[in-house]
């Protein structure tokens, strides 16, 4: 993922691209709880945007605002240039929400048949089943399905109307690795078919694996926005691991070092740029050995962004 060239323009160029959904200066209060605070972001046609944040960050609130399920306390929500509650907007959107329970006594194909009827130009049943990978279980009742299969039915309900814009609220939550990768593949196929997708996740590698653009949100505010590569570069750019006799305090004073910690026999250095730190390191300790430079994972960036420090140990991906 890191080596891939990403063609998505910077957010500050967004003004030149058409916007299909946007939150403008949106604040949402639940009583005295501030779920979102002056949020601004736009989604452009054909991109997959990941809204990344820990639980309780306000991701689901943002999705519900865009779906017209909630009204903003202040600010404006626009989808396809209109009100998200407008039925003409709703026929162009599909949503997969975190729902605890779907009526269990209806069969998979019956659920899809009903949801398809809400849309003016739905996909044929066979195609919806194929995209969501449900052909073999179309006659099963929802209550008899496994967790991953249930999620795929919810995906099928989101896509069956052939909408242009899809909202996927934590679509892979509770899935095992295999089911998650299969769903990722299905999401990538949807984007390849020209769909625009807003995905929320607290799985950092999920945003990294899927998104063209990541919006990091914490405690109701956007704290970073950019391509996965940019997000990573924006914070702890590189991680250097080496064996050295230098005390940690000394390493910390090298120009460009963000953080240092001892990891068994080695030290692990978080650096904005590897080159200057390596130069300083080699200068002070000619005997430094076992140097490894890796790019920090999105997880490191995320930790740094949300916690304001990056002492969190994490194994390289």
């Amino acid at each position, binding site marked *: 993922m890191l080596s891939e060239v990403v063609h998505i323009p910077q957010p500050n160029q967004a003004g030149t691209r058409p916007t299909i959904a946007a939150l403008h200066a949106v604040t949402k209060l639940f009583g005295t709880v501030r779920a979102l605070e002056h949020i601004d972001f736009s989604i452009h046609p054909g991109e997959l945007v990941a809204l990344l944040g820990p639980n309780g960050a306000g991701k689901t609130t943002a999705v519900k605002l865009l779906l017209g399920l909630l009204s903003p306390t202040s600010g404006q929500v626009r989808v396809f240039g209109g009100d998200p509650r407008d039925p003409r907007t*709703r026929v162009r959107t599909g949503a997969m929400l975190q729902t605890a*329970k*779907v009526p269990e006594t209806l069969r998979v194909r019956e659920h899809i048949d009903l949801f398809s009827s809400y849309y*003016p130009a739905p996909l044929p049943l066979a195609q919806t089943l194929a995209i969501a990978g449900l052909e073999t279980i179309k006659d099963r009742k929802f209550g008899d399905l496994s967790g991953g299969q249930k999620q795929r039915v919810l995906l099928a309900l989101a896509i069956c109307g052939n909408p242009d814009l899809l909202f996927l609220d934590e679509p892979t939550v509770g899935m095992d690795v295999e089911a998650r990768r299969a769903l990722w593949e299905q999401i990538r196929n949807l984007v390849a078919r020209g769909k625009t997708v807003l995905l929320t996740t607290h799985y950092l590698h999920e945003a990294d694996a899927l998104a063209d653009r990541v919006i990091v949100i914490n405690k109701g505010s956007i704290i970073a926005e950019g391509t996965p590569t940019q997000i990573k570069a924006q914070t702890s750019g590189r991680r250097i691991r080496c064996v050295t006799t230098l005390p940690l305090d000394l390493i910390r004073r090298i120009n460009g070092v963000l953080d240092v910690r001892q990891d068994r026999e080695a030290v692990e250095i978080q650096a904005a740029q590897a080159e200057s730190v390596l130069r300083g390191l080699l200068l002070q300790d000619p005997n430094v050995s076992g140097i490894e430079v890796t790019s920090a994972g999105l997880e490191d960036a995320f930790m740094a962004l949300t916690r304001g420090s990056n002492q969190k140990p994490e194994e390289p991906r």
Partner: protein
Amino acid sequence: MSAATTTISSRPARSLASTLSVYAKEAKYEFLKMFRLPIYAVSTLAFPVMFYVLFGLILNPRQAAFGGTSVAAYLIASYGTFGVMGAALFGFGVGVAVERGQGWLEVKRASPMPPYAYFTAKIAMCLLFSTLIVASLLLLGFAFGGVRLSTLQTLELLASLVVGSIPFCAMGLALGYFVGPNSAPALVNCFYLPLSFASGLWFPIEMMPKLVQKIAPGLPPFHLAQIALCSIGANHRGSLTSHWETLLGFTLVCVGLARIGYHRDQGKLYG
């Protein structure tokens, strides 16, 4: 924000035919969903039928006369009222509480489903179940209870009870917006059973203690039972118009409460 916004494309608005087809599908699947749910389908049908077989047929071997008609006919009216009330209260009350509380209603609201399709489907489902319940009681009464009603009386009883279930759909809807998904069945029973008893649906109102006889006219099921008794020519209290007016007023109050619950829901914090 100077971004160009793509406007809503000129997709055709939903035609009348396709709107009707959405309503029909919604109702069809609502019925299938409930019909396949034993706790609903069996209990709403089985309880009135069981009561009727027990008190109207088995414990009434000589087909005694009562209240201006036979016991077997009288009990079709009162257990019929009990049955349609249960179908409505559980279908709406528990149905809405569960689907609202567990997030399914939200998935539907986010879709382009016409909002009234959901409620219309539930009403249609309740009316169909009500018809099934009253028809079962009538068939049992005709076949084993020696009940003799004219075609007109039969149809009037069926129509009164089926239409008369609508106020209890509204009551269920109101309950569904205020009770949680897990407590819903128990709480609905807390209303259903005492109301049925005190309205004279289990035992004729004439046989109830004086106090209950005083309270009953304040309870909506009492009025529906009186309408049902009137339709088969049995003794009843009060005028038909006043009973329907009471039920209409009760319906409006329940719809009002449901609206308050609906709006309260909008401001709630979800996960």
